[in-house]
């Protein structure tokens, strides 16, 4: 192995300790750990939210213990093996969760309630690979770090980048805000869009006098809509009771396609009622 690679392997222990320490502390001390445990796939595995919460806390304690061992003890097959076992266990559990309860969260880090996704698998794989590295390490990290400052700095940078990429959603916030500041608003392109959304036309209609008057005929929600010659036509289905008999009708509203509620206070709405079977105009009298 090259010197840099050897140094990286030696430095795996504290980096892995960082990963296990944050995840373990979250599980053991997290304020929401108890309530979110019931939403994990673990709750299904151990049959109960309370048991899942206890199991997660126990796992958190184990992770902290391993974290302390990785920091304080020289690298050994025992600590490395423990991390390998933990990583492999995580991968197996995630596979199980994905297979049996796709919508549930993994409980991998406290407060992360999102469903099991690719990043959770990647984090588990990092623990496994870290364990292998600790097993292969030749020197304790506190001996290697001062001797290899450049490699140490590189490893720390790589760890920070990895943490950003693999962090659960609730810890990605500062990164997203920073990126927005640096690159500008990603949706600035929509500023120039002049099209009036259909939602705006429907809102204009539903708040108009025409709607108040015609609403008792209308049964459906918006059935169809289209623009034609500057008009926006909104089509609804309804029932009209004229000569004692109820007949299905189509209620059509025509509005200015470019009008929005902000520009028009009292919209002019054309209202037509057609027989749904024949398409003939229906005389609607109260």
């Amino acid at each position, binding site marked *: 192995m090259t010197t840099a690679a050897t140094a990286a392997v030696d430095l795996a222990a504290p980096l892995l300790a960082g990963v296990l320490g944050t995840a373990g502390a979250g599980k053991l001390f997290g304020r929401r750990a108890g309530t979110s445990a019931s*939403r994990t796939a673990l709750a299904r595995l151990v049959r109960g939210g309370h048991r899942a919460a206890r199991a997660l806390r126990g796992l958190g304690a184990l992770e902290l213990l391993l974290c302390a061992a990785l920091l304080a003890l020289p690298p050994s097959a025992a600590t490395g093996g423990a991390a390998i076992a933990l990583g492999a266990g995580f991968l197996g559990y995630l596979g199980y969760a994905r297979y049996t309860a796709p*919508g549930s969260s993994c409980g991998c880090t406290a407060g992360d309630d999102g469903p099991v996704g690719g990043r959770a698998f990647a984090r588990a794989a990092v623990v496994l690979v870290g364990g292998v590295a600790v097993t292969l390490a030749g020197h304790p990290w506190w001996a290697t770090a001062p001797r290899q400052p450049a490699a140490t700095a590189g490893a720390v940078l790589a760890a920070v980048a990895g943490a950003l990429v693999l962090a659960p959603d609730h810890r990605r916030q500062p990164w997203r805000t920073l990126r927005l500041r640096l690159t500008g608003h990603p949706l600035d392109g929509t500023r120039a869009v002049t099209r009036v959304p259909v939602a705006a036309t*429907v*809102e204009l209609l*539903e*708040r*108009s*006098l025409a*709607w*108040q008057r015609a*609403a*008792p*005929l*209308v*049964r459906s*929600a*918006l059935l169809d809509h289209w623009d034609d010659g500057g008009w926006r036509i909104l089509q609804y289905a*309804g*029932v009209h009771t004229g000569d004692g008999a109820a007949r299905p009708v189509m209620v059509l509203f025509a509005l200015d396609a470019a009008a929005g509620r902000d520009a028009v*206070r*009292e919209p002019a709405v054309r209202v037509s009622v057609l027989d749904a079977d024949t398409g003939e105009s229906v005389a609607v009298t109260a």
Partner: protein
Amino acid sequence: MAGSRGPAHHDHMACGSTSLWNGEATWFCCGNAWGPCATAGGGACGTCKSSKLQAAWPNASKACWDITRPDLCGEKLPRRGCGSVMKVRHQCSGVSVCVTVSDCGPRTRSFCSESSCCDGTCRTNRVIDLTPAAFSAIGSLSSGILPVVIFE
């Protein structure tokens, strides 16, 4: 929407004729239903179901009030706890529905001074959240928000 259809009714309902409040109504889902509602549970009262004629009120309890804070928008809504019955009338069409308070909401403070109008008469601030069953009885779910008058 349509007039005397379904659980919606025109005036003179047993569930209330005394004016209580007015404002905007939105809708929400509850009761372990599909989609993002899967974890919503039975709401603050433990009885909430999307398919029942129910509502969330911002002052269902002190704890609820601390979350919704309608006072920050100038709305000093009275306390109406779980099980309270209200009549909610769509201001534009006059169609109304009777609902039972079963949860806490909406988060009035997030949308202060927002208003919905009907032919010039406006109702300000989100003061009640209806279940899909209740909201769809007086309006379209895809509209999302309605001006309403509330009776008890």
